[in-house]
């Protein structure tokens, strides 16, 4: 549930917590003030209202303080995000291809599988694309999500820190079986993983996939070329 699976997931959670705490405080402030005023100044107690048209100092205060608060929120979100997008170096690369209503996971050595196996403690880059409509590669436990857009490539970079089995979901509406694109994301011990990858040696899940991917690549257009450089 709120399980920590990587450094990234815990920073996202603390950003979440930070925003939540400020929000709850704000909400409390407003609510308490509201209830207090309603009781204290109810018509039967305070039949003559005091006319007040405003107060510049107060209004400036409640412009400036929230501004500072939200800027700090922005900073938190931005910092984590730049980690997620840090592509300078990564250890393993995967090619994730979505289609109605399935995922294909392709490893660097050409193997294609239905379940995504990765090694723990390595920095992994996922290149995400789609063959038909929009999908979204979502691993709740890692707090990551990136749309699979036909005709172009998205990516995310994560470093899992705990072995285990996690869910991959599709988070962009894609039709009838959108709800049924759950797949497993399995983080293995490093030696176990590498042994496994070796043993697969470029095996395809089904031969069909390669041909489809080839044709998708061959009508590459200027747009995706531009994007890559």
């Amino acid at each position: 549930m709120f399980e920590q699976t990587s450094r990234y997931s815990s920073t996202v959670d603390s950003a979440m917590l930070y925003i939540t705490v400020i929000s709850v405080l704000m909400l409390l402030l407003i609510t308490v003030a509201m209830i207090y005023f309603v009781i204290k100044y109810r018509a039967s107690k305070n039949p003559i209202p005091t006319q007040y048209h405003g107060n510049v100092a107060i209004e400036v205060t409640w412009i400036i303080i929230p501004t500072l608060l939200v800027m700090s929120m922005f900073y938190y979100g931005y910092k984590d995000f730049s980690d997620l997008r840090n592509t300078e170096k990564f250890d393993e690369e995967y090619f994730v291809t979505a289609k109605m209503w399935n995922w294909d996971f392709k490893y660097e050595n050409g193997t294609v599988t239905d379940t995504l196996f990765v090694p723990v403690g390595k920095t992994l880059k996922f290149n995400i694309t789609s063959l038909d409509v929009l999908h979204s590669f979502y691993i709740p436990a890692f707090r990551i999500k990136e749309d699979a857009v036909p005709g172009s490539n998205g990516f995310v970079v994560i470093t899992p820190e705990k072995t285990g089995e996690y869910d991959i979901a599709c988070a962009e509406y894609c039709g009838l079986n959108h709800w049924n694109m759950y797949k497993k994301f399995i983080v293995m011990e490093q030696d176990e993983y590498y042994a496994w990858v070796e043993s697969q040696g470029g095996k395809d899940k089904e031969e069909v996939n390669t041909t489809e991917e080839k044709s998708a690549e061959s009508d590459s257009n200027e747009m995706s070329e531009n994007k890559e450089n």
Partner: protein
Amino acid sequence: MSGHNEHTSVDTHEHLPSYGKNVMIWLVLVALTALTVTVASVDLGNYTFFVAMLIASIKAMLVINIFMHIKYDDILMKSILLACGLVFTVIFIMYSFDLFNRYTG
């Protein structure tokens, strides 16, 4: 901002517009069209786009100011045009943040 009661029913441009001035403007517009077509055949590299847009904008300003009378209208009427320009600028700028970084990495 001005309330309605400050305007009269027949609006602000009292002067009767003349034929001559409009014909002049038309001549200028035609000349600018000729210019832009000529310039198009010269290779200006990256500037082609800007030159073409500049000339088009000048033509547009002439049409708006003179043919569409905005020059003689009051500030409220002009502010619509201003808002329109602002909205366009904002959309294009915001949108460019995506385009330029995505397509021309």
